[in-house]
């Protein structure tokens, strides 16, 4: 199939070529249709000739292999692929705009940066969950659907942790895109999902300041510089960048993957909750590190990444978001103790866990609720204080725990929504008694168990059960 001679109206394996789209660097794109398929589709045809340009050949092989097994709203749906004699991939045509379109408007307002960043982080988390690391995340590979969701495209350099890594096997030099490639990728490590978090940090930096943190290095030798040279703090380039956003961005850009967010879901969590981002010295950093510090880092930089064996899913499983829903009513004291015990057990087995403590402030459907109690105290604040007090005995570092009071009419629905919107992995909550009335009306915990998108642990005290039996 000669890519350069394709014409509108031509039929390739049952797909009718409708019109050509803007070509990418290594492929041409056509809108295609097929009788019986309503979904808008695009055909990607690699620009290659047999035996030439291994990056195009291997990239096509990899994308064909990986896209075919990805599902969900954050990737284009795979439709079909051609064979080696006639290579192509047909996939869903994603309606929306490229993230690149936002770059002209930079610097964006912090809220816009966080909103776009959270969408991309959710897309990344969904990808990582499916064992795939993108490894070439950049604005041109992100499409924002019209409904706001982010879609990731171009898996030519990606890695599936249960399949052969054809890219690593083919190339001795690091591969990627200069401004976005993570330090460990420069050292040829291709097995760490946190490399994508670094690339997302570069994107956030760019959106927030209008500049790229590491410029546009052309050669792989120049890529190495990011192993020791830290970027200019974003707040120095744009005074409107708040400390929380600088904290998030610089944490994503840490040279050591272990200092970045453990998962994209944890990053999304911070982007969605600026008020609860734990601030460190990073947040207020005004200058790049001094020459001595940079020189020392440079001297300590290894030539190659240390060999590690780990899996993407393993890393994700070690850093779950655990949400504990707390009932602050006075009569639930015993239940709160039992919850603390249960949470302690969860934290003991999941040392990388992040804990979100939630209380739902029930509001009425019609009346305007007072913001203060009869003594004039702020209800919201009181509850935050109570949550912190409850959590003080838990063995969890300050930066891994956050507190949230949410207002809602329907308790169970609010908890389920919260878990879904924040990609929570595990809900721990209490169940009060099992009285006949409760059985009739249906308890909050039963509804959460039925509807939650994740594991739910329901905690009971013996007292509450026997009370209910007696009553």
């Amino acid at each position, binding site marked *: 199939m000669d890519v350069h001679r394709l014409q509108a109206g031509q039929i390739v394996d049952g797909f009718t070529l409708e019109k050509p789209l803007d070509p990418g660097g290594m492929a041409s794109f056509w809108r295609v249709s097929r009788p019986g398929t309503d979904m808008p589709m695009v055909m990607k045809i690699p620009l290659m000739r047999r035996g030439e340009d*291994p990056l195009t050949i291997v990239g096509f092989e990899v994308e064909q292999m990986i896209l075919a097994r990805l599902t969900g709203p954050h990737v284009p749906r795979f439709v079909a692929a051609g064979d080696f004699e006639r290579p192509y991939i047909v996939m869903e045509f994603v309606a929306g705009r490229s993230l690149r379109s936002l770059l002209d408007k930079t610097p964006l307002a912090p809220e816009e940066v966080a909103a776009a960043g959270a969408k991309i982080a959710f897309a990344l988390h969904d990808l990582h969950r499916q064992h795939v690391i993108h490894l070439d995340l950049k604005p041109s590979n992100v499409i924002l659907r019209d409904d706001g969701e982010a879609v990731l495209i171009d898996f030519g350099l990606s890695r599936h942790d249960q399949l052969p890594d054809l890219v690593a*096997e083919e190339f001795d030099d690091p591969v990627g895109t200069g401004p976005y490639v993570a330090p460990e990728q420069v050292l040829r490590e291709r097995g760490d999902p946190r490399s994508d978090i670094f690339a997302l940090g570069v994107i956030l930096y760019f959106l927030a300041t209008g500049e790229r943190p590491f410029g546009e290095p052309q050669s792989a030798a120049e890529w190495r510089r990011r192993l020791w040279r830290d970027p200019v703090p974003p707040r120095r380039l744009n005074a409107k960048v708040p400390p929380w956003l600088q904290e998030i961005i610089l944490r994503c850009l840490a040279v050591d993957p272990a200092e970045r967010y453990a998962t994209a879901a944890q990053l999304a969590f911070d982007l969605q909750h600026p008020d609860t981002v734990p601030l460190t010295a990073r947040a207020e950093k005004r200058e790049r590190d001094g020459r001595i510090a940079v020189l020392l880092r440079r001297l300590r930089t290894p030539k190659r990444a240390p060999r590690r064996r780990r899996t993407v899913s393993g890393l994700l499983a070690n850093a779950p978001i655990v949400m504990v829903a707390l009932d602050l009513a006075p009569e639930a004291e015993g239940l709160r103790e039992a919850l603390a015990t249960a949470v302690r057990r969860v934290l003991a087995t999941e040392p990388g866990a992040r804990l979100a403590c939630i209380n739902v402030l029930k509001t009425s459907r019609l009346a305007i609720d007072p913001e203060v109690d009869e003594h004039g105290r702020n209800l919201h604040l009181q509850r935050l204080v109570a949550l912190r007090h409850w959590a003080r005995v838990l063995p969890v570092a300050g930066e891994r725990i956050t507190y949230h009071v949410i207002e809602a009419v329907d308790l169970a629905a609010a908890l389920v929504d919260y878990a879904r919107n924040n990609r929570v992995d595990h809900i721990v909550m209490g169940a009060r008694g099992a009285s006949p009335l409760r059985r009739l009306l249906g308890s909050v915990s039963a509804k959460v168990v039925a509807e939650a998108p994740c594991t739910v642990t329901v905690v009971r005290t013996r007292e509450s059960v026997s009370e209910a039996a007696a009553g």
Partner: protein
Amino acid sequence: MRIALMTDVHGNREAFAACLDHAAQNGIDRYVFLGDFAGYGADPGWVIDTVAAHVERGAIALLGNHDAAVLTNDNNMNEAAAAAIAWTRTQLDASQRAFLAGLPLFIEEEDRLYVHASGFEPDRWHYVTDLYAASRSLMATQAHATFCGHTHVPALFHMSLTGKFASFDPVARVDIPLNPQRRWLAVIGSVGQPRDRDPAACYAVLDDERHALTYVRVPYDIESAARKIEAAGLPAILGARLFEGY
């Protein structure tokens, strides 16, 4: 077509029966047995009869080095293996020996090569344990995909268009696409004596329409298999190692 690839059964009836049951429940259209039906285990006769029955229904079966050793007198095996071969000879009847004697060293089917040890000098039983051995096998034939056993350790080697060789440790239950763009050599782990530290029986399924290879692990009754080895008076190590998968 879904093809079950099984190899190195080594007289382990329990493991073989478990794999055949598993295959029967998973829509297998065709069976390919890559050799070494005898040796080590306590049920060589049953295993050979079962394979022979499958061959009558169209299955492929190949000769392995242990099968060859049963038929001839020369072998350069370690002590335990040699003892098992000597014992096996006393267990097989004439028809079972005739069946083994009629087995081919390799079979080519479409663009696939089935062989017990290596495509390079199949009668010399080279072990494909590293890139060099894999490259020798791949260079020796034209096959797009080679399937072999012999090492008892599952492994997947491949060669790109540019001639680069690489290896991969397959993960069980994951469909691995054998892209037509490159050439593949799949070492199927052992049914009857796994040696990759996973004691479950190993075989693989090839879907030749989707070009997908899937390694499968099947737990089986190791206690019974080991007890029979002991009862037969075979070296104790042959039963003990089944529990470790080594």
